[in-house]
């Protein structure tokens, strides 16, 4: 693709960041590059990469990218929910469209702009924690090269009824997106964000390394929904971290239908009494797609609640890896933590790997995890066939119902409908 030929390779040393950006950011990027160089690449024996296909981590032939040109077709396709509070559309991390009905006081900007207009506020929240689920090297690469993303800051007490939606389009072969999403919901505020990753065509292989940091301050509610529907040539790493303070409630949801290889790392830090975190994911890998999901529920404070539900429906020769850990700190009593991974095996060539883990350092806790892998039972198919539904439709109905159980937990009709649209597209491609 000619537009991308002029860009330097992803693994080359970054050029210095924009002169308009604050000094701290330039320093952070330079340090991140050093950290990238100093951090060894993951190896097969690393526990955080157990069962992973390490060869997917060869990013040598990807380039950094930008976008100049006509994006109107993709802007037109960036239809999310009706009545969105704000919409931002990016192509290869370049902002191509922005609209907003946000109340005054809410900051919702491309990160590149926020770094200029609100440098100190961004600094306060920017990549505060080390990545610990295996991708420290790629998080450093992301930080060293990142040019854009979204900074959303909701002031205390502001309740946004309608979602903020962000669209990322990957354009061109061997291109890279490094979007950085930073959401801060101040005390007692409420916000819902839907972020969608798509490709502009079906044949170009792109790489996305997305990092997002979510901060829910006391009594805030922060819902973050990601739809990953990149084309099936692409690779994607998403690194998600939530901080949930006293009486705050955070939900992070991930629907994966796209990409050839997708790695997601999601960590939730429960930092206050009565904080609650819901970690949800639905995946429908088909063909030879591989989804590698690592999660961490970190109970730092006593009396917090976390609940994780990941569901995979595996078709073709798809492969999934789920590795989850509930980690309860010493003194985090009255912790109430759950973790469930369910795999629905739809073909006899798919493969599901589950590693549900617990590390408990306090005694007054309720923690449990469960993991199942099974096929649809013959009785269920028979029940539907007896009602005149053919077997393939019956199987799909059951797989859809299996996924919807998670989607319904979002508790927002328009968002659920939006997510379902992508789920049904995926199921339709299987007919």
């Amino acid at each position, binding site marked *: 693709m000619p537009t991308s030929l002029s860009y330097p390779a992803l693994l080359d040393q970054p050029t210095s960041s924009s002169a308009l950006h604050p000094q701290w950011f330039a320093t952070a990027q330079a340090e991140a590059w050093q950290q990238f160089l100093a951090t060894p690449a993951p190896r097969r*024996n*690393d*526990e955080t990469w*157990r*069962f992973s296909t390490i060869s997917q981590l060869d990013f040598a032939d990807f380039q950094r990218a930008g976008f100049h040109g006509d994006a109107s077709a993709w802007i037109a396709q960036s239809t999310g929910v009706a009545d969105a509070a704000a919409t931002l559309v990016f192509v290869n991390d370049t902002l191509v469209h922005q609209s907003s009905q946000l109340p005054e006081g809410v900051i919702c900007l491309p990160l590149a702009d926020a770094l200029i207009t609100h440098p100190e506020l961004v600094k306060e929240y920017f990549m505060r924690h080390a990545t610990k689920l295996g991708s420290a090297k790629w998080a450093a690469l992301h930080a060293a090269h990142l040019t854009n993303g979204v900074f959303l800051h909701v002031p205390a007490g502001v309740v946004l009824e309608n979602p903020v939606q962000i669209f990322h389009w990957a354009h061109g072969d061997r291109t890279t997106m490094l979007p950085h999403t930073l959401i801060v919901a101040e005390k007692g505020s409420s916000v819902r964000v839907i972020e969608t990753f798509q490709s502009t065509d079906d044949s170009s292989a792109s790489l996305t390394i997305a990092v997002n940091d979510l901060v829910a301050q006391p009594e805030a509610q922060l819902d973050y929904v990601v739809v990953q529907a990149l084309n099936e040539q692409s690779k994607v790493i998403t690194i998600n971290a939530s901080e949930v303070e006293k009486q705050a409630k955070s939900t992070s949801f991930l629907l994966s239908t796209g990409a050839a290889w997708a790695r997601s790392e999601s960590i939730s830090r429960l930092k206050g009494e009565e904080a609650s975190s819901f970690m949800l994911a639905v995946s429908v890998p088909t063909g030879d797609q591989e989804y590698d999901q690592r999660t961490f529920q970190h109970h730092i404070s006593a009396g917090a609640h976390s609940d994780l539900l990941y569901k995979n429906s595996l078709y073709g020769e798809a492969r999934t890896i789920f590795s989850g850990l509930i980690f309860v700190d*010493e*003194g985090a*009593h009255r912790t109430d933590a759950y973790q469930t991974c369910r*795999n629905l*095996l*739809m*073909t*006899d*060539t*798919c*493969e*599901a*790997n*589950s*590693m*549900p*883990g*617990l*590390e*408990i*350092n*306090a*005694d*007054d*806790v*309720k*923690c*449990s*995890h*469960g*993991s*199942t*892998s*099974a*096929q649809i039972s013959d009785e269920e198919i028979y029940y539907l066939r007896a009602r005149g539904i053919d077997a393939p439709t019956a199987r799909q109905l059951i797989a859809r119902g299996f996924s919807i159980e998670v989607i319904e937990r979002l508790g927002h009709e328009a968002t659920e409908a939006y997510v379902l649209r992508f789920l049904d597209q995926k199921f339709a491609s299987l007919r």
Partner: protein
Amino acid sequence: MSLDLLPETLDQETAEAVNIDRSIGDFTFPERNKFDAGRGLSEKTIDYICDVKNDPQWVREFRHRALKVFRDKPMPTNWATEDLNNINFDEIRYYLSDGEKPKRSWDDVPADVLETFERLGIPQQERAFLAGVEAQFDSEAAYSNVKEELTKQGVIFVNSTEGLKEHEEIFRPWFGKVIPTGDNKFSALNSAVFSGGSFIYIPKGVKLKQPLQAYFRINSESFGQFERTLIIADEGAEVMYMEGCTAPKFETATLHSAVVELVALKGAKIQYVTVQNWSSNVFNLVTKRGLAMEDAEVRWIDCNIGSRLTMKYPGVVMKGRRARGEVISIALANTGQHQDTGAKMIHAADETTSNVVSKSISVGTGRSTYRGQVHIPKHLKGCKNNTECDALLINTKSRTDTYPAITVKGNQHATQHEASVSQVSQEMLFYMMQRGISEGAAMSLAVNGFINDLVREFPMEYSVELKRLIDLEMEGSVG
């Protein structure tokens, strides 16, 4: 009753209820070794052991190859505890024996060795209910006997040295086949310096009504015990094997690293029962695996009470159709202890089923870990696994971890894994205390209720340590 390890927060009665008597094995006799390989491990150590044991050439070569593998393999600290780095391989004594052959009669066993086993109750149990006993003192068996009618039926129950010399035709084809030398660093170490352990062969169709027992005793300081057990149950045979182990509490760490291989041929059943009560400075790093052929069953029943660090994941490779594997595991981790136990279920044939039930109790600052692997490869049909692991935390600083890994390929299988962590709830204690039960007894009741269904899997008559557990269980069933 050794209460010193318990935190002050536990009242005396509760402490007594949850603590297990570890003092029974805490005594020692002066060393009377004729053969001592000295400290540290080198080619010379291997040759010394081979010379003393008069090993055949193939065993000598096997040991030397294993030493090389041991040296090449890194410590598995990428997933296991750093405490492993505290093992000083240069300080350990790898072979100690008095040069005597195992005796067939307790009358011929040296007085202090006899007294050791008398105090542990072994001869008495043998008279009461065992089909055969082997008692190992440091590196070699001091006593080995099996009931005469079993010998007539062709049952072989000898130590590994005798097994590899006298029964090479049965021993050699299976030796190191279930657990290859290179399986892990400690199986390689065992392969290099193994001594003692049992070799058992149960002929076709022979079903032993009474269990066989082995008792492992460490008597010398800084000693490493490396027994090697191979049990072969021929087609349709059935056997239950029980092992117990104790060591006195020395100032320095002691290493126990066994390799146990089980082979259950078509339709055979092997049950392997362990009650591990090593003193709290023993590193207990054991590799145990069974091979189950068509319609065969291998069950590991495992109770870990003692040791400083135990790393043990009994496995079953289900190689024949409808083979069955099971691991039943109880672990008690007190202050200063880490019980890192689990199970490994490798399904390698259609319609194979496996079951893992693990319960752990962490007391004081004790840490218990469950680590499991379930593997169901492609192109198999109808495999099933069920895994349950429950952890009970007694004190504020108690710790528990669960790390299972489940791989399922294909859609003709079913696996389920469940784990829970709980404490003895205040409500539960209150409920019982309201009915006039003291807090300690209530705690005991709750703890015993927690492991009750697993305790039933152990043979009632078994060892002193388990009797203590069963006593607790009886106490619990009164209310």
